[in-house]
C-alpha cells in the first residue's frame, strides 16, 4: 500500500531568499527549502537536520554546484549535500531525506508523509 502523503503549504514566495534556504516546520519535522532562481527546477526541499551532528542548520548553508550537481554545504562542518538526491558528496553512506516541492500560485507546498499525523492521532 502506498503511504499516504499530503502536500502542505509551508510558506509563500515572499519568504524565500534567492540562492539560499529558509527553514520551515512540517509534520515530518524541520525542512529546508532552497530557491535557486537560475536553475530548473528552482525549488528544492531537504531535511533541515545535519546528519553528522543532528543539529537543525542546513537551510543556513551556502548553496552552489559541484561537478554540475546542485548542493548545499553544511554550515557546521562543511560537508556537501546534493539538493536533488540528498546524497552527501564526502561520505557515500550518508544522505539526507529529500521532499517533493512545488509552487502553487503564491504558496510553496512540500509533500510530507501523512502517516505521522495519523499515528499521532491514533
Amino acid at each position, binding site marked *: 500500500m502506498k503511504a499516504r502523503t499530503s502536500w502542505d503549504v509551508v510558506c509563500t514566495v515572499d*519568504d524565500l531568499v534567492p540562492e539560499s534556504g529558509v527553514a520551515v516546520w512540517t509534520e515530518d519535522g524541520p525542512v529546508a527549502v532552497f530557491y535557486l532562481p537560475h536553475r530548473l527546477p528552482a525549488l528544492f526541499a531537504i531535511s533541515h537536520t545535519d546528519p553528522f551532528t543532528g543539529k*537543525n542548520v542546513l537551510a543556513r548553508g*551556502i548553496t552552489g554546484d559541484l561537478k554540475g550537481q546542485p548542493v548545499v554545504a553544511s554550515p557546521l562542518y562543511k560537508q*556537501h549535500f546534493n539538493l536533488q538526491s540528498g546524497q552527501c558528496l564526502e561520505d557515500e553512506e550518508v544522505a539526507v531525506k529529500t521532499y517533493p516541492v512545488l509552487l502553487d500560485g503564491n504558496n510553496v507546498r512540500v509533500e510530507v508523509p501523512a502517516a505521522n499525523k495519523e499515528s499521532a492521532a491514533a
Partner: protein
Amino acid sequence: MSKKTLIVIGNGMVGHHFLEQLVATPAAADFDIKVFGEEKLLAYDRVHLSEYFGGSTHADLAMGTADWYGENNIDLRLGEQVTAIDRAKQTITTPMGDYAYDELVLATGSYPFVPPIKGNEHPHCLVYRTLEDLDSIRASSEGAKTGVVVGGGLLGLEAANALKSLGLEAHVVEFAPRLMPVQLDADGGALLKRKIEELGVQVHTEKATTEIVEGEDARLRMNFSDDTHLETDLIVFSAGIRPQDALARSSELAMGERGGIVINDQCTTSDPHIHAIGECALWSEKIFGLVAPGYTMARTLASVLNGDREAAFSGADMSTKLKLLGVDVGSIGDAHATTPGARNIRFNDEQAGHYRRMVISEDGKKLLGAILVGDNSHYDTLLQYALNGIELPQQPETLILPESQGGAPTLGPDALPETASICSCHNVSKGDICGVIDAGCSDLGSVKAETKASTGCGGCAALLKNVVDSELEKRGVEVSKDICEHFPYSRQDLFNIVKVNGIRTFRTLIRDHGKGHGCDICKPAVASILATCWNEHILATDHVPLQDTNDTFMANMQKNGTYSIVPRIPGGEITPDKLIVLGEVAKEYDLYTKITGGQRVDLFGATLSQLPEIWEKLIAAGFETGHAYGKSLRTVKSCVGNTWCRYGVQDSVGMAITLENRYKGLRAPHKVKMAVSGCTRECAEAQSKDFGVIATENGWNLYVCGNGGMRPRHGDLFATDLSDEELIRTIDRVVMFYVRTADRLQRTSVWMENLEGGLDYLKQVVLEDSLGICEELEQHMADLVGTYQCEWKTAVEDPEKRKRFREFVNAPEKKDPVQEWTTERDQRRPLLEGEPA
C-alpha cells in the same frame, strides 16, 4: 644481559639532539641513560636565544619536554654540575655523589671568553650565553641608559640588538679594524658598520679596552689604549667562545693546544669509553661554533654506539647566513681567499648598500667561497655552487650582478645533484626529499613533517619550497592556483577583475568570468572582494547567499546551531554602565558568558530569532558589532599603557581605540588581529598579531605579519619610531596591499612567507612606494573608513532584513527541538553528545 650505564654530561642543544637520535636506535634498549645538566632548565634552542627578549619563554625555546625524558626512561638531573671524572674507576662526581658509567658522553658546550681587563668583575659586566645571562642583562638594564658590547662578531652584534630592544643606547666595541672579522673582508665589514650605525647602534673599531672604572655620568667607564674612553651603564662581553673542557683537562684526556677535547672521526676521545660532541670537541684541530656540525657529531655518535662501524664525522661546512639587526650577512666557504691561486670578483653598490664577493678557483671553474652584505638573495645559489662543486657558468660574475645588468637567474632546483644538501640543520639532501615525495608526500607541509627539513634555523625554507614545487611539478602534480572549479583564477586575479571591470554582483562575475553557480569556496571569497571594493551592506540581497552562515547572520554559529554574540569593545576599554548592560542582556536570555582572548565578552547560546532582539538592546546601549564572525578586523588588544602603568611610555589604549575604530568592518582575505603595547615589555603580546605596535620613547615601532594560533609566527619589525600619523598611514598601506594581493583564507603571516621578495619587498612597496601605488592604497582605505556602517544597526532597523532571522518561517513560536541544555558552574551550556540530560 644486564644493561650498561650511559652518562651524558651537558643538557644543551647537541646533548639533547644526541639523545633524540639514540632513542630512535635499537641500542637505546641496551643502556640505562643518565643526563647531568648544570643549567636548571631543560635543553633549549640557544640559536634563538635572543627571542627571549622578544617575548619567547623557556617553554617556547625548549627542545623537548620533561615528559619526553620520562617516556624514554632517561634519568634527567638538571642543576647538577659534574665536578670530576675518575677514568680508572669509571665514575663521575657531582655535589650529590658518585655515579658509575660504562660509556660517557661529554656535551658540555663552551663558555664565553671574558678578556682579562682590569675591572671586568664589576656586577654590571655580563655575558650572553644562557637564559640566566639574559635575565641578568634584563635586570641590569633597569634604570640603565646605555649598554656596550665588547666584540663585534656574530654573537656580539646579536647582543647589541638585544640591548637595543631593551631600550638602551647600544654601542659595539671591536678590537679588530672591522666587524665580523672572521666572516667578512674590509669592504664587507665597512658596509655592515655603516648599515648598523644607520640603525642606531654605534660601532667603535680598533679599540682595545685597558681598564673598566667607575663612571662619572654612567655606572662605568671604559678606558681605551688610545686614551679615549666611553661611559656606559652595563657591558656585555662577547669576545669569542672557549670550549668547556675543564673536566677533560683534569682527567687528562688528550687536549688541543688551545683547548678543546680531541676526538676522532667516531667522536671518541683518547679514552675509548669517553666521547665528546658539540662545541667542546676538537676535530682535526677545529672547534665548530655552530649548531649544525654539533648535530652531525650527535648523529655520528648515536650510530657508533648502535654498532655502525662505517659512521664517521667528516667535518662540516661553516657557511652562515644571518640577519643581524635586520641586515643580511652571508659568508660561504673560503671567504678570505686563502686557497692558493684563488681569484676574486667583487660587486660593491655603495648607494644601495649591497656588497658581494666571490672567491673562485684558479681555473675559474669552481666557487670556493663568498661574502654577502646587505642582501642575501644570492646566498642559496652560491652555497649550492660551492658545496656541490658545480661548474661555474662562462661568466661567473653574472651570479652576483644585479639582474638589470645581465645577472643570471638563480640556480634552478633542477641543476642541483641528488646529494645537494638542502637543510644542513637536519641533514636533508635533495635525494631525501625526492625519496619522501616518491613515498607519497604531495605537499610542502608533509615533506617538512617527514624529513624535518627547515624546522631548525629555517634558513633553507625558500630553497626547500623551490625543490619541492619543482619535484612535484615534474611528477605531474599540478600546483594549481585556481580558487575552485568555478573560476580559473586566484583570489588576487579575481580582485583585479572585479575592480577593473567595476563588477558589483556575484552573478555578473560568474557569468562573465567563470562557470556554473559557485560554491562555498568561491562565494565567500567573492563576497569579501566585493565588500572591499564597494563596501555595501553584507545583508544586501545580492550578497546574502554568498556569505558563510556566520556572516549572513552576523554571529558565530556554535556546535549546537545556536549563535554567540561579541559586541565590539575597542581596545578592551569599557565603562561600568556598558558592562552592566552586557550582564543584564546575558541574564535575560540566559546566555553563557565568557571573556575572549581578544579582550572582550562573548555571549553564547542565542537562537537565530533572538539575535535581532538582543542586538536592539545592545545598540541602544551604544554597542556596535564586533565582527567576530567575519574575515575582518577582530580586536586591537592593548595593555593599559602610560595612563596607569609605571613603565608605559605612550598611550597604548588610546592608540588601540583609534586603530580599532579605523579598521573595524574592513573585509579581508582572513581575520586580522592587532595589538598595542605601551612599552617594550610588550604586555599586549603585539608581536603575535598581524599588526603589532610597541611604544618607544619616540613614538611607535610597527611589527607586521605575526600570528598566534596553530602556527605561531613572530611579527617582523617593519618600521621604527613612527609618529601617530606615520603609524596609521603605514598600517593603511600594508593592510590594503594585503587585502588586494593575498590568497583566499591566507593570514598575513602566510602571505608574507609567500610574498616574493619577502619583508624587503614589502618595505619597498610601502615605505619607498616602489610600485607607485601608495596614494591609491591610502585613498581606497579612506573610502572604506568613510563608508563604515554597523551592520547590526542597519539590520535591526530594516524589517525586510529582520525576516531572515526567523528560525522556522512558518512557525515563529516554534523552538528548535534538538537544543538540549544543562547547567555547569552556574551557567547554561549545551548537552554534549551522549551526555544524559
